[in-house]
Protein backbone atom coordinates (compact mmCIF):
# COMPACT_ATOMS: atom_id res chain seq x y z
CA UNK A 1 0.00 0.00 0.00
CA UNK A 2 2.79 2.42 0.82
CA UNK A 3 4.98 3.63 -1.96
CA UNK A 4 8.37 4.92 -0.86
CA UNK A 5 8.75 8.63 -1.28
CA UNK A 6 11.92 8.46 -3.29
CA UNK A 7 10.14 6.61 -6.04
CA UNK A 8 7.51 9.26 -6.33
CA UNK A 9 9.47 12.45 -6.26
CA UNK A 10 13.04 12.57 -7.32
CA UNK A 11 13.90 15.31 -4.88
CA UNK A 12 12.63 17.53 -2.17
CA UNK A 13 12.77 20.38 -4.61
CA UNK A 14 10.20 18.81 -6.87
CA UNK A 15 7.97 18.19 -3.91
CA UNK A 16 8.22 21.79 -2.86
CA UNK A 17 7.54 22.91 -6.39
CA UNK A 18 4.46 20.74 -6.55
CA UNK A 19 3.12 22.11 -3.30
CA UNK A 20 3.81 25.71 -4.19
CA UNK A 21 2.39 25.43 -7.66
CA UNK A 22 -1.31 25.52 -6.73
CA UNK A 23 -0.64 28.37 -4.30
CA UNK A 24 1.05 30.48 -6.92
CA UNK A 25 -1.73 29.49 -9.29
CA UNK A 26 -4.35 30.82 -6.88
CA UNK A 27 -2.49 34.08 -6.48
CA UNK A 28 -1.90 34.17 -10.20
CA UNK A 29 -5.62 34.02 -10.75
CA UNK A 30 -6.20 36.74 -8.17
CA UNK A 31 -3.69 38.93 -9.89
CA UNK A 32 -5.19 38.14 -13.26
CA UNK A 33 -8.65 39.25 -12.15
CA UNK A 34 -7.15 42.30 -10.52
CA UNK A 35 -5.25 43.26 -13.63
CA UNK A 36 -8.42 43.21 -15.67
CA UNK A 37 -10.13 45.84 -13.58
CA UNK A 38 -9.06 49.27 -14.78
CA UNK A 39 -9.99 50.95 -11.52
CA UNK A 40 -8.03 48.46 -9.46
CA UNK A 41 -4.99 48.97 -11.69
CA UNK A 42 -5.27 52.73 -11.29
CA UNK A 43 -5.59 52.28 -7.54
CA UNK A 44 -2.62 49.96 -7.45
CA UNK A 45 -0.50 52.38 -9.46
CA UNK A 46 -1.38 55.25 -7.13
CA UNK A 47 -0.53 53.13 -4.11
CA UNK A 48 2.76 52.06 -5.67
CA UNK A 49 3.64 55.62 -6.61
CA UNK A 50 2.85 56.71 -3.09
CA UNK A 51 5.05 54.02 -1.57
CA UNK A 52 7.83 54.99 -3.97
CA UNK A 53 7.54 58.64 -2.94
CA UNK A 54 7.48 57.68 0.71
CA UNK A 55 10.72 55.75 0.24
CA UNK A 56 12.64 58.14 -1.97
CA UNK A 57 10.65 61.39 -1.75
CA UNK A 58 13.15 63.13 0.49
CA UNK A 59 15.91 62.50 -2.06
CA UNK A 60 13.76 63.66 -4.96
CA UNK A 61 12.78 66.91 -3.31
CA UNK A 62 14.34 69.81 -5.25
CA UNK A 63 14.43 72.11 -2.21
CA UNK A 64 15.09 71.69 1.46
CA UNK A 65 11.70 70.89 2.97
CA UNK A 66 12.51 72.21 6.45
CA UNK A 67 14.65 75.33 6.32
CA UNK A 68 13.00 78.70 5.81
CA UNK A 69 13.67 80.92 2.85
CA UNK A 70 11.96 84.18 3.70
CA UNK A 71 12.41 86.01 0.40
CA UNK A 72 10.45 83.29 -1.42
CA UNK A 73 7.31 83.44 0.78
CA UNK A 74 3.83 82.82 -0.72
CA UNK A 75 5.05 82.16 -4.25
CA UNK A 76 2.14 80.91 -6.39
CA UNK A 77 2.68 77.74 -8.42
CA UNK A 78 5.27 78.36 -11.11
CA UNK A 79 7.90 76.53 -13.08
CA UNK A 80 10.44 76.74 -10.29
CA UNK A 81 7.89 75.96 -7.56
CA UNK A 82 5.27 73.76 -9.24
CA UNK A 83 3.05 73.77 -6.16
CA UNK A 84 4.04 77.15 -4.80
CA UNK A 85 5.76 78.04 -1.54
CA UNK A 86 4.49 78.50 1.99
CA UNK A 87 4.64 81.19 4.63
CA UNK A 88 8.30 80.52 5.30
CA UNK A 89 9.18 80.31 1.63
CA UNK A 90 9.53 76.53 1.65
CA UNK A 91 8.67 74.68 -1.55
CA UNK A 92 5.29 72.94 -1.08
CA UNK A 93 6.14 70.16 -3.50
CA UNK A 94 9.37 69.38 -1.71
CA UNK A 95 7.60 69.34 1.60
CA UNK A 96 4.96 67.01 0.24
CA UNK A 97 7.57 64.67 -1.24
CA UNK A 98 9.43 64.58 2.04
CA UNK A 99 6.23 64.30 4.07
CA UNK A 100 4.78 61.25 2.34
CA UNK A 101 6.82 58.96 4.53
CA UNK A 102 5.00 60.17 7.62
CA UNK A 103 1.63 59.19 6.25
CA UNK A 104 2.69 55.75 5.19
CA UNK A 105 4.58 55.24 8.43
CA UNK A 106 1.40 56.11 10.30
CA UNK A 107 -0.58 53.59 8.27
CA UNK A 108 1.98 50.82 8.64
CA UNK A 109 2.58 51.28 12.35
CA UNK A 110 -1.09 51.52 13.22
CA UNK A 111 -1.99 48.43 11.24
CA UNK A 112 1.07 46.56 12.47
CA UNK A 113 -0.15 47.02 16.02
CA UNK A 114 -3.90 46.90 15.54
CA UNK A 115 -4.17 43.94 13.18
CA UNK A 116 -2.26 41.32 15.19
CA UNK A 117 -3.95 42.45 18.37
CA UNK A 118 -7.40 42.36 16.82
CA UNK A 119 -6.79 39.05 15.07
CA UNK A 120 -5.52 37.42 18.22
CA UNK A 121 -8.35 38.64 20.44
CA UNK A 122 -11.04 38.02 17.83
CA UNK A 123 -9.69 34.56 17.09
CA UNK A 124 -9.63 33.62 20.76
CA UNK A 125 -13.13 34.97 21.27
CA UNK A 126 -14.53 33.13 18.29
CA UNK A 127 -12.74 29.88 18.94
CA UNK A 128 -13.38 29.46 22.64
CA UNK A 129 -16.76 31.14 22.88
CA UNK A 130 -18.49 31.19 26.25
CA UNK A 131 -17.42 33.72 28.84
CA UNK A 132 -14.07 34.42 27.14
CA UNK A 133 -15.94 35.52 24.05
CA UNK A 134 -18.37 37.50 26.16
CA UNK A 135 -15.60 39.42 27.95
CA UNK A 136 -13.58 40.18 24.83
CA UNK A 137 -16.59 41.28 22.85
CA UNK A 138 -17.88 43.54 25.63
CA UNK A 139 -14.48 45.22 25.74
CA UNK A 140 -14.55 45.76 21.97
CA UNK A 141 -18.07 47.14 22.37
CA UNK A 142 -16.71 49.65 24.84
CA UNK A 143 -14.00 50.77 22.48
CA UNK A 144 -16.44 50.94 19.61
CA UNK A 145 -18.74 53.12 21.70
CA UNK A 146 -16.40 56.07 21.13
CA UNK A 147 -16.07 57.82 17.83
CA UNK A 148 -12.54 56.70 16.99
CA UNK A 149 -11.28 60.19 16.24
CA UNK A 150 -12.39 61.48 19.63
CA UNK A 151 -10.85 58.57 21.46
CA UNK A 152 -7.63 58.93 19.51
CA UNK A 153 -7.60 62.62 20.32
CA UNK A 154 -7.97 61.92 24.00
CA UNK A 155 -5.25 59.30 23.88
CA UNK A 156 -2.79 61.42 22.00
CA UNK A 157 -3.51 64.40 24.23
CA UNK A 158 -2.85 62.23 27.26
CA UNK A 159 0.35 60.87 25.78
CA UNK A 160 1.46 64.29 24.59
CA UNK A 161 1.06 65.49 21.02
CA UNK A 162 3.47 63.86 18.61
CA UNK A 163 3.12 61.83 15.46
CA UNK A 164 4.27 58.67 17.18
CA UNK A 165 1.78 59.09 20.00
CA UNK A 166 -0.97 59.75 17.49
CA UNK A 167 -0.14 56.39 15.91
CA UNK A 168 -0.26 54.61 19.23
CA UNK A 169 -3.58 56.30 19.89
CA UNK A 170 -4.96 55.20 16.54
CA UNK A 171 -3.81 51.62 17.06
CA UNK A 172 -5.68 51.51 20.34
CA UNK A 173 -8.91 52.49 18.64
CA UNK A 174 -8.37 50.42 15.51
CA UNK A 175 -8.02 46.87 16.81
CA UNK A 176 -11.68 46.30 17.74
CA UNK A 177 -12.68 46.28 14.06
CA UNK A 178 -10.31 43.41 13.37
CA UNK A 179 -11.39 41.59 16.49
CA UNK A 180 -14.97 41.73 15.24
CA UNK A 181 -14.03 40.67 11.73
CA UNK A 182 -11.97 37.69 12.84
CA UNK A 183 -14.47 36.63 15.47
CA UNK A 184 -17.28 36.65 12.94
CA UNK A 185 -15.20 34.58 10.55
CA UNK A 186 -14.11 32.24 13.33
CA UNK A 187 -17.70 31.63 14.35
CA UNK A 188 -18.62 30.83 10.77
CA UNK A 189 -15.65 28.51 10.28
CA UNK A 190 -16.25 26.83 13.62
CA UNK A 191 -19.67 25.73 12.40
CA UNK A 192 -18.43 24.15 9.17
CA UNK A 193 -18.28 20.43 8.86
CA UNK A 194 -14.58 20.42 8.07
CA UNK A 195 -13.89 21.74 11.53
CA UNK A 196 -16.26 19.19 12.99
CA UNK A 197 -14.51 16.48 11.03
CA UNK A 198 -11.18 17.65 12.41
CA UNK A 199 -12.56 17.68 15.94
CA UNK A 200 -13.95 14.20 15.50
CA UNK A 201 -10.39 13.09 14.81
CA UNK A 202 -9.12 14.78 17.94
CA UNK A 203 -7.81 18.09 16.63
CA UNK A 204 -6.93 20.63 19.30
CA UNK A 205 -8.19 24.17 19.45
CA UNK A 206 -4.82 25.45 18.32
CA UNK A 207 -4.81 23.17 15.33
CA UNK A 208 -8.23 24.51 14.33
CA UNK A 209 -7.13 28.07 14.94
CA UNK A 210 -4.00 27.92 12.83
CA UNK A 211 -4.99 25.43 10.16
CA UNK A 212 -8.60 26.44 9.58
CA UNK A 213 -9.67 29.72 11.11
CA UNK A 214 -6.71 31.99 10.39
CA UNK A 215 -6.17 30.89 6.78
CA UNK A 216 -9.84 31.54 6.13
CA UNK A 217 -9.54 35.03 7.61
CA UNK A 218 -6.70 35.91 5.29
CA UNK A 219 -8.66 37.31 2.35
CA UNK A 220 -11.14 39.44 4.30
CA UNK A 221 -8.25 40.78 6.37
CA UNK A 222 -6.29 41.59 3.24
CA UNK A 223 -9.21 43.54 1.82
CA UNK A 224 -9.91 45.40 5.06
CA UNK A 225 -6.21 46.11 5.47
CA UNK A 226 -5.95 47.77 2.09
CA UNK A 227 -9.06 49.85 2.63
CA UNK A 228 -7.92 50.73 6.14
CA UNK A 229 -4.58 52.01 4.91
CA UNK A 230 -6.53 54.91 3.42
CA UNK A 231 -8.62 55.40 6.55
CA UNK A 232 -5.62 55.44 8.86
CA UNK A 233 -3.85 57.97 6.68
CA UNK A 234 -6.92 60.21 6.82
CA UNK A 235 -7.27 59.75 10.56
CA UNK A 236 -3.59 60.51 11.19
CA UNK A 237 -3.86 63.58 9.00
CA UNK A 238 -6.98 64.67 10.88
CA UNK A 239 -5.18 64.36 14.19
CA UNK A 240 -2.28 66.36 12.85
CA UNK A 241 -4.70 68.90 11.46
CA UNK A 242 -6.14 69.40 14.94
CA UNK A 243 -2.64 69.74 16.35
CA UNK A 244 -2.45 66.36 18.06
CA UNK A 245 -0.18 64.61 15.62
CA UNK A 246 2.89 65.81 13.79
CA UNK A 247 4.41 68.99 15.20
CA UNK A 248 6.16 71.66 13.13
CA UNK A 249 8.35 71.67 11.20
CA UNK A 250 7.55 68.08 10.21
CA UNK A 251 5.96 68.29 6.74
CA UNK A 252 3.05 65.95 7.47
CA UNK A 253 0.28 66.53 4.92
CA UNK A 254 -2.56 67.05 7.39
CA UNK A 255 -0.43 69.48 9.31
CA UNK A 256 0.39 71.32 6.08
CA UNK A 257 -3.33 71.75 5.33
CA UNK A 258 -3.78 73.11 8.83
CA UNK A 259 -0.83 75.47 8.51
CA UNK A 260 -2.13 76.86 5.24
CA UNK A 261 -5.63 77.33 6.56
CA UNK A 262 -5.33 80.92 7.67
CA UNK A 263 -3.61 81.87 4.42
CA UNK A 264 -6.32 80.42 2.18
CA UNK A 265 -7.02 83.78 0.56
CA UNK A 266 -3.44 84.69 0.09
CA UNK A 267 -1.98 81.32 -0.80
CA UNK A 268 -4.65 78.68 -1.45
CA UNK A 269 -2.04 76.24 -2.75
CA UNK A 270 -0.60 75.77 0.73
CA UNK A 271 -3.67 73.83 1.85
CA UNK A 272 -5.13 72.62 -1.39
CA UNK A 273 -2.22 70.55 -2.68
CA UNK A 274 -1.40 68.59 0.48
CA UNK A 275 -5.13 67.88 0.85
CA UNK A 276 -5.34 66.78 -2.75
CA UNK A 277 -2.41 64.48 -2.06
CA UNK A 278 -4.30 62.83 0.76
CA UNK A 279 -7.43 62.44 -1.37
CA UNK A 280 -5.44 60.82 -4.14
CA UNK A 281 -3.66 58.37 -1.89
CA UNK A 282 -6.81 57.38 -0.01
CA UNK A 283 -8.65 57.00 -3.29
CA UNK A 284 -5.86 54.78 -4.54
CA UNK A 285 -6.05 52.45 -1.56
CA UNK A 286 -9.83 52.39 -1.76
CA UNK A 287 -9.77 51.42 -5.42
CA UNK A 288 -7.15 48.79 -4.80
CA UNK A 289 -9.07 47.39 -1.83
CA UNK A 290 -12.29 47.18 -3.84
CA UNK A 291 -10.38 45.49 -6.63
CA UNK A 292 -8.86 42.92 -4.29
CA UNK A 293 -12.28 42.24 -2.81
CA UNK A 294 -13.70 41.62 -6.25
CA UNK A 295 -10.78 39.46 -7.28
CA UNK A 296 -11.31 37.23 -4.24
CA UNK A 297 -15.03 36.97 -4.90
CA UNK A 298 -15.60 33.31 -5.73
CA UNK A 299 -18.30 34.08 -8.28
CA UNK A 300 -16.09 36.32 -10.35
CA UNK A 301 -13.16 33.92 -9.98
CA UNK A 302 -15.17 31.03 -11.34
CA UNK A 303 -16.24 33.08 -14.32
CA UNK A 304 -12.75 34.24 -15.04
CA UNK A 305 -11.01 30.96 -14.44
CA UNK A 306 -12.33 29.61 -17.70
CA UNK A 307 -10.62 32.25 -19.79
CA UNK A 308 -7.47 32.08 -17.73
CA UNK A 309 -5.07 29.47 -19.03
CA UNK A 310 -1.82 29.59 -17.06
CA UNK A 311 -0.92 26.07 -18.22
CA UNK A 312 -2.70 23.12 -19.67
CA UNK A 313 -5.26 21.87 -17.22
CA UNK A 314 -5.63 18.14 -17.08
CA UNK A 315 -9.19 17.02 -16.99
CA UNK A 316 -10.34 14.33 -14.65
CA UNK A 317 -12.86 11.72 -15.48
CA UNK A 318 -13.85 10.26 -12.13
CA UNK A 319 -16.58 12.00 -10.24
Amino acid at each position, binding site marked *: MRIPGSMLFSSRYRLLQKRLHPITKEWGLTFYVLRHSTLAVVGGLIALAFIFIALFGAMLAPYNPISANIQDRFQPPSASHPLGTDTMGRDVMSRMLAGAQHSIKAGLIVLAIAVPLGVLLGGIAGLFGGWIDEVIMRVTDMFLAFPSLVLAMAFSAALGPSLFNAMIALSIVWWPMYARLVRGQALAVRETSYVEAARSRGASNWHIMFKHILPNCLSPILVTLTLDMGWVITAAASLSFLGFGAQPPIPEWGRMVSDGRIYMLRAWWMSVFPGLGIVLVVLGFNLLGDGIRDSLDPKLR*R*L*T*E*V*TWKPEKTSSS*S*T*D
Partner: protein
Amino acid sequence: METREDLLVVDRLKTQFFTYGGVVEALDEVSFEIRLGEIFGLVGESGCGKSVTATSILGLVAKPGKIVSGRVLLDGENLVEKSEQEMNRVRGSRIAMIFQDPTSSLNPLFRIGYQVAEPYIYHQRRPKRQALKDATEILAKTGLPDAVEKSRNYPHELSGGMRQRAMIAMSLTCEPDLLIADEPTTNLDVTIGRQILDLVKDLQREFGASVLWITHDMAVVAQMCDRVGVMYAGTIVEKTDVRTLFRNAKHPYTERLLRAIPSAVKSADKLEEIPGSVPQLIHPPTGCRFHPRCDHVMEICSRVKPVELEVEPGHMVACHLFGGEKEAT
Protein backbone atom coordinates in the same frame (compact mmCIF):
# COMPACT_ATOMS: atom_id res chain seq x y z
CA MET B 1 -53.83 6.89 -26.08
CA GLU B 2 -56.57 9.42 -26.63
CA THR B 3 -55.63 12.66 -28.27
CA ARG B 4 -55.99 15.58 -25.99
CA GLU B 5 -55.46 19.21 -26.65
CA ASP B 6 -52.05 20.65 -25.88
CA LEU B 7 -52.00 23.47 -23.35
CA LEU B 8 -48.35 24.31 -23.56
CA VAL B 9 -46.00 23.54 -26.40
CA VAL B 10 -42.30 24.10 -25.94
CA ASP B 11 -40.79 24.07 -29.37
CA ARG B 12 -37.03 23.75 -29.96
CA LEU B 13 -36.25 26.02 -27.05
CA LYS B 14 -32.65 27.15 -26.88
CA THR B 15 -31.50 29.12 -23.84
CA GLN B 16 -27.91 30.18 -23.40
CA PHE B 17 -25.92 32.01 -20.75
CA PHE B 18 -23.38 34.48 -22.02
CA THR B 19 -20.67 34.48 -19.35
CA TYR B 20 -17.09 35.72 -19.34
CA GLY B 21 -15.94 32.17 -19.70
CA GLY B 22 -17.98 31.52 -22.79
CA VAL B 23 -21.48 30.59 -23.84
CA VAL B 24 -23.18 28.06 -21.59
CA GLU B 25 -25.53 26.09 -23.79
CA ALA B 26 -28.03 25.35 -21.05
CA LEU B 27 -30.90 24.24 -23.25
CA ASP B 28 -30.33 22.78 -26.69
CA GLU B 29 -33.55 22.64 -28.68
CA VAL B 30 -35.79 21.29 -25.97
CA SER B 31 -39.27 20.33 -27.18
CA PHE B 32 -42.20 18.91 -25.31
CA GLU B 33 -45.89 19.52 -24.90
CA ILE B 34 -48.16 19.51 -21.90
CA ARG B 35 -51.74 18.46 -22.44
CA LEU B 36 -54.76 19.83 -20.69
CA GLY B 37 -55.15 18.40 -17.24
CA GLU B 38 -52.05 16.22 -17.23
CA ILE B 39 -49.00 16.14 -15.01
CA PHE B 40 -45.91 16.22 -17.16
CA GLY B 41 -42.67 15.27 -15.42
CA LEU B 42 -39.29 16.65 -16.32
CA VAL B 43 -36.65 14.48 -14.71
CA GLY B 44 -32.89 14.62 -14.73
CA GLU B 45 -29.79 15.10 -12.62
CA SER B 46 -28.58 18.47 -11.36
CA GLY B 47 -27.40 20.84 -14.04
CA CYS B 48 -29.34 19.13 -16.83
CA GLY B 49 -31.47 22.23 -17.47
CA LYS B 50 -34.76 21.38 -15.74
CA SER B 51 -34.98 24.63 -13.83
CA VAL B 52 -33.77 26.69 -16.78
CA THR B 53 -36.67 25.22 -18.75
CA ALA B 54 -39.06 26.44 -16.08
CA THR B 55 -37.62 29.95 -15.93
CA SER B 56 -37.53 30.09 -19.73
CA ILE B 57 -41.23 29.31 -19.91
CA LEU B 58 -41.96 32.10 -17.45
CA GLY B 59 -39.56 34.49 -19.17
CA LEU B 60 -37.52 34.83 -16.00
CA VAL B 61 -34.12 33.63 -17.16
CA ALA B 62 -31.53 35.36 -14.98
CA LYS B 63 -29.24 38.04 -16.36
CA PRO B 64 -26.46 36.66 -18.54
CA GLY B 65 -29.00 34.15 -19.84
CA LYS B 66 -31.19 34.59 -22.92
CA ILE B 67 -33.64 32.59 -24.93
CA VAL B 68 -31.81 32.37 -28.23
CA SER B 69 -34.43 30.65 -30.32
CA GLY B 70 -37.50 28.50 -30.10
CA ARG B 71 -41.06 29.09 -29.07
CA VAL B 72 -43.16 28.61 -25.96
CA LEU B 73 -46.80 28.40 -26.97
CA LEU B 74 -49.47 28.76 -24.33
CA ASP B 75 -52.82 28.09 -26.00
CA GLY B 76 -51.15 29.01 -29.27
CA GLU B 77 -49.72 32.32 -28.06
CA ASN B 78 -45.94 32.59 -28.22
CA LEU B 79 -44.73 33.70 -24.77
CA VAL B 80 -41.19 34.33 -25.97
CA GLU B 81 -42.34 37.26 -28.07
CA LYS B 82 -44.42 38.88 -25.36
CA SER B 83 -43.40 42.11 -23.70
CA GLU B 84 -42.52 42.25 -20.03
CA GLN B 85 -45.89 43.79 -19.22
CA GLU B 86 -47.80 41.18 -21.15
CA MET B 87 -45.81 38.45 -19.43
CA ASN B 88 -46.71 39.92 -16.04
CA ARG B 89 -50.32 39.22 -16.87
CA VAL B 90 -49.45 35.60 -17.61
CA ARG B 91 -47.23 34.99 -14.61
CA GLY B 92 -49.03 34.14 -11.43
CA SER B 93 -52.29 34.26 -13.27
CA ARG B 94 -52.17 31.73 -16.11
CA ILE B 95 -48.86 30.08 -15.20
CA ALA B 96 -47.90 29.83 -11.55
CA MET B 97 -44.81 28.38 -10.01
CA ILE B 98 -43.93 26.52 -6.82
CA PHE B 99 -40.27 26.63 -5.88
CA GLN B 100 -38.01 24.06 -4.33
CA ASP B 101 -37.08 25.86 -1.14
CA PRO B 102 -40.08 27.43 0.58
CA THR B 103 -37.78 28.95 3.18
CA SER B 104 -35.91 31.22 0.83
CA SER B 105 -38.77 31.65 -1.60
CA LEU B 106 -41.04 33.40 0.86
CA ASN B 107 -40.19 36.97 1.74
CA PRO B 108 -39.13 36.88 5.40
CA LEU B 109 -40.49 40.34 6.16
CA PHE B 110 -44.10 39.90 5.11
CA ARG B 111 -46.90 37.95 6.70
CA ILE B 112 -47.93 34.72 5.01
CA GLY B 113 -51.47 35.90 4.40
CA TYR B 114 -50.35 39.04 2.62
CA GLN B 115 -47.96 37.15 0.37
CA VAL B 116 -50.68 34.73 -0.61
CA ALA B 117 -53.10 37.60 -1.17
CA GLU B 118 -50.82 39.55 -3.49
CA PRO B 119 -51.93 37.87 -6.73
CA TYR B 120 -55.55 38.66 -5.79
CA ILE B 121 -54.61 42.29 -5.25
CA TYR B 122 -52.54 42.80 -8.37
CA HIS B 123 -54.11 40.38 -10.86
CA GLN B 124 -57.73 40.50 -9.87
CA ARG B 125 -57.82 43.96 -8.34
CA ARG B 126 -59.63 42.78 -5.27
CA PRO B 127 -59.66 45.18 -2.31
CA LYS B 128 -56.92 44.37 0.17
CA ARG B 129 -59.25 43.35 2.97
CA GLN B 130 -61.15 40.99 0.70
CA ALA B 131 -57.93 39.59 -0.73
CA LEU B 132 -56.59 38.80 2.73
CA LYS B 133 -59.80 37.03 3.60
CA ASP B 134 -59.71 35.01 0.40
CA ALA B 135 -56.08 34.18 1.10
CA THR B 136 -56.97 32.50 4.38
CA GLU B 137 -59.59 30.47 2.55
CA ILE B 138 -57.18 29.15 0.00
CA LEU B 139 -54.62 28.52 2.74
CA ALA B 140 -57.20 26.43 4.53
CA LYS B 141 -57.77 24.54 1.31
CA THR B 142 -54.13 23.48 1.23
CA GLY B 143 -54.60 21.85 4.60
CA LEU B 144 -52.84 24.47 6.67
CA PRO B 145 -54.16 24.02 10.20
CA ASP B 146 -55.59 27.20 11.81
CA ALA B 147 -55.29 29.05 8.51
CA VAL B 148 -56.75 32.27 9.87
CA GLU B 149 -54.21 32.46 12.63
CA LYS B 150 -51.31 31.16 10.56
CA SER B 151 -51.92 33.71 7.83
CA ARG B 152 -50.87 36.38 10.30
CA ASN B 153 -47.56 34.64 10.95
CA TYR B 154 -44.23 35.36 9.36
CA PRO B 155 -42.57 32.61 7.31
CA HIS B 156 -39.97 31.83 9.97
CA GLU B 157 -42.74 30.99 12.40
CA LEU B 158 -43.99 28.09 10.28
CA SER B 159 -42.52 24.67 9.63
CA GLY B 160 -41.10 23.72 6.25
CA GLY B 161 -44.18 21.74 5.31
CA MET B 162 -46.49 24.61 6.22
CA ARG B 163 -44.39 27.04 4.21
CA GLN B 164 -44.66 24.77 1.20
CA ARG B 165 -48.43 24.66 1.68
CA ALA B 166 -48.40 28.44 1.69
CA MET B 167 -46.37 28.45 -1.54
CA ILE B 168 -48.92 26.12 -3.11
CA ALA B 169 -51.78 28.32 -1.92
CA MET B 170 -50.01 31.30 -3.43
CA SER B 171 -49.66 29.58 -6.78
CA LEU B 172 -53.32 28.56 -6.87
CA THR B 173 -54.80 31.97 -6.09
CA CYS B 174 -55.65 32.85 -9.67
CA GLU B 175 -56.56 29.31 -10.70
CA PRO B 176 -53.75 29.02 -13.23
CA ASP B 177 -53.95 26.84 -16.30
CA LEU B 178 -50.43 25.62 -15.77
CA LEU B 179 -48.63 24.99 -12.52
CA ILE B 180 -44.86 24.63 -12.61
CA ALA B 181 -43.56 22.74 -9.60
CA ASP B 182 -39.77 22.87 -9.29
CA GLU B 183 -38.79 20.06 -6.93
CA PRO B 184 -41.29 21.13 -4.28
CA THR B 185 -40.70 18.12 -2.04
CA THR B 186 -36.91 17.88 -2.21
CA ASN B 187 -36.26 19.82 0.97
CA LEU B 188 -39.03 18.19 2.94
CA ASP B 189 -39.16 15.11 5.09
CA VAL B 190 -40.52 11.88 3.68
CA THR B 191 -43.92 11.97 5.35
CA ILE B 192 -44.39 15.70 4.80
CA GLY B 193 -43.21 15.39 1.20
CA ARG B 194 -45.80 12.71 0.64
CA GLN B 195 -48.50 14.92 2.07
CA ILE B 196 -47.48 17.63 -0.39
CA LEU B 197 -47.54 15.17 -3.29
CA ASP B 198 -51.03 14.05 -2.35
CA LEU B 199 -52.12 17.65 -1.89
CA VAL B 200 -50.92 18.78 -5.31
CA LYS B 201 -52.57 15.79 -6.93
CA ASP B 202 -55.89 16.49 -5.19
CA LEU B 203 -55.80 20.19 -5.98
CA GLN B 204 -54.80 19.51 -9.58
CA ARG B 205 -57.87 17.34 -9.99
CA GLU B 206 -60.05 19.95 -8.34
CA PHE B 207 -58.73 22.92 -10.29
CA GLY B 208 -58.20 21.00 -13.50
CA ALA B 209 -54.81 22.59 -14.04
CA SER B 210 -51.97 21.08 -16.00
CA VAL B 211 -48.73 20.59 -14.08
CA LEU B 212 -45.13 20.68 -15.14
CA TRP B 213 -43.43 18.67 -12.41
CA ILE B 214 -39.68 19.07 -12.22
CA THR B 215 -37.73 16.58 -10.15
CA HIS B 216 -34.60 14.50 -9.92
CA ASP B 217 -36.41 11.72 -8.10
CA MET B 218 -37.57 8.85 -10.31
CA ALA B 219 -39.84 7.53 -7.55
CA VAL B 220 -41.72 10.82 -7.41
CA VAL B 221 -42.11 10.66 -11.16
CA ALA B 222 -43.51 7.16 -10.90
CA GLN B 223 -46.11 8.25 -8.39
CA MET B 224 -47.03 11.67 -9.73
CA CYS B 225 -46.68 12.07 -13.47
CA ASP B 226 -48.71 11.03 -16.47
CA ARG B 227 -46.00 11.60 -19.03
CA VAL B 228 -42.28 12.18 -18.58
CA GLY B 229 -39.40 13.83 -20.36
CA VAL B 230 -35.93 12.71 -19.34
CA MET B 231 -33.30 15.43 -19.60
CA TYR B 232 -29.58 15.06 -19.97
CA ALA B 233 -27.14 17.97 -20.31
CA GLY B 234 -29.65 20.41 -21.77
CA THR B 235 -31.42 18.00 -24.10
CA ILE B 236 -34.47 15.79 -23.82
CA VAL B 237 -33.33 12.26 -24.50
CA GLU B 238 -36.55 10.36 -23.95
CA LYS B 239 -40.20 11.27 -23.70
CA THR B 240 -43.08 8.92 -23.04
CA ASP B 241 -45.87 8.04 -20.67
CA VAL B 242 -44.76 7.05 -17.22
CA ARG B 243 -45.60 3.34 -17.34
CA THR B 244 -43.70 2.84 -20.57
CA LEU B 245 -40.70 4.62 -19.13
CA PHE B 246 -40.40 2.33 -16.14
CA ARG B 247 -41.25 -0.80 -18.12
CA ASN B 248 -39.40 -0.18 -21.30
CA ALA B 249 -36.85 2.65 -21.16
CA LYS B 250 -35.03 2.87 -24.46
CA HIS B 251 -32.37 5.56 -24.23
CA PRO B 252 -29.11 4.21 -22.82
CA TYR B 253 -28.99 7.06 -20.28
CA THR B 254 -32.51 6.46 -18.94
CA GLU B 255 -31.95 2.77 -18.83
CA ARG B 256 -28.77 3.07 -16.82
CA LEU B 257 -30.11 5.79 -14.55
CA LEU B 258 -33.04 3.60 -13.55
CA ARG B 259 -30.69 0.80 -12.64
CA ALA B 260 -28.47 3.09 -10.54
CA ILE B 261 -31.24 3.68 -8.02
CA PRO B 262 -31.05 1.53 -4.93
CA SER B 263 -34.50 0.12 -5.00
CA ALA B 264 -36.76 -1.69 -2.64
CA VAL B 265 -37.63 -4.32 -5.21
CA LYS B 266 -34.21 -5.63 -6.18
CA SER B 267 -31.54 -5.74 -3.54
CA ALA B 268 -28.42 -6.11 -5.59
CA ASP B 269 -25.07 -5.74 -3.89
CA LYS B 270 -23.71 -3.59 -6.63
CA LEU B 271 -25.53 -0.72 -8.24
CA GLU B 272 -25.26 0.10 -11.90
CA GLU B 273 -22.77 2.87 -12.59
CA ILE B 274 -22.64 5.30 -15.47
CA PRO B 275 -19.00 5.91 -16.35
CA GLY B 276 -17.68 9.46 -16.48
CA SER B 277 -19.47 12.53 -15.27
CA VAL B 278 -21.94 15.13 -16.48
CA PRO B 279 -20.22 17.39 -19.04
CA GLN B 280 -19.63 21.12 -18.79
CA LEU B 281 -22.17 22.99 -20.86
CA ILE B 282 -19.69 25.63 -21.97
CA HIS B 283 -18.16 23.23 -24.43
CA PRO B 284 -20.65 20.37 -24.49
CA PRO B 285 -19.81 17.17 -26.36
CA THR B 286 -20.61 17.36 -30.05
CA GLY B 287 -23.33 15.27 -31.59
CA CYS B 288 -25.18 13.35 -28.93
CA ARG B 289 -24.25 14.91 -25.60
CA PHE B 290 -24.29 11.56 -23.88
CA HIS B 291 -21.90 9.83 -26.29
CA PRO B 292 -18.71 10.06 -24.16
CA ARG B 293 -20.41 8.03 -21.44
CA CYS B 294 -22.44 5.66 -23.58
CA ASP B 295 -21.71 1.92 -23.94
CA HIS B 296 -23.34 1.75 -27.33
CA VAL B 297 -21.44 4.67 -28.79
CA MET B 298 -21.07 4.59 -32.55
CA GLU B 299 -19.05 6.64 -34.93
CA ILE B 300 -22.00 8.83 -35.87
CA CYS B 301 -22.80 9.72 -32.25
CA SER B 302 -20.00 12.24 -31.90
CA ARG B 303 -20.80 13.89 -35.20
CA VAL B 304 -24.55 14.22 -35.50
CA LYS B 305 -27.07 15.33 -32.96
CA PRO B 306 -29.77 12.66 -32.84
CA VAL B 307 -33.34 13.75 -33.59
CA GLU B 308 -36.35 12.45 -31.75
CA LEU B 309 -37.83 9.28 -33.15
CA GLU B 310 -41.09 7.70 -32.30
CA VAL B 311 -40.03 4.15 -31.43
CA GLU B 312 -43.54 3.16 -30.45
CA PRO B 313 -46.71 5.25 -30.33
CA GLY B 314 -46.12 8.21 -28.03
CA HIS B 315 -42.62 7.08 -27.08
CA MET B 316 -39.95 9.44 -28.37
CA VAL B 317 -36.24 8.67 -28.09
CA ALA B 318 -33.35 10.81 -29.27
CA CYS B 319 -30.71 8.21 -29.95
CA HIS B 320 -28.92 6.96 -33.05
CA LEU B 321 -29.51 3.37 -31.98
CA PHE B 322 -33.06 3.71 -33.13
CA GLY B 323 -32.80 5.60 -36.36
CA GLY B 324 -30.89 5.85 -39.57
CA GLU B 325 -28.53 8.63 -40.48
CA LYS B 326 -30.78 9.93 -43.19
CA GLU B 327 -33.31 11.37 -40.78
CA ALA B 328 -30.63 12.99 -38.73
CA THR B 329 -28.88 14.98 -41.39
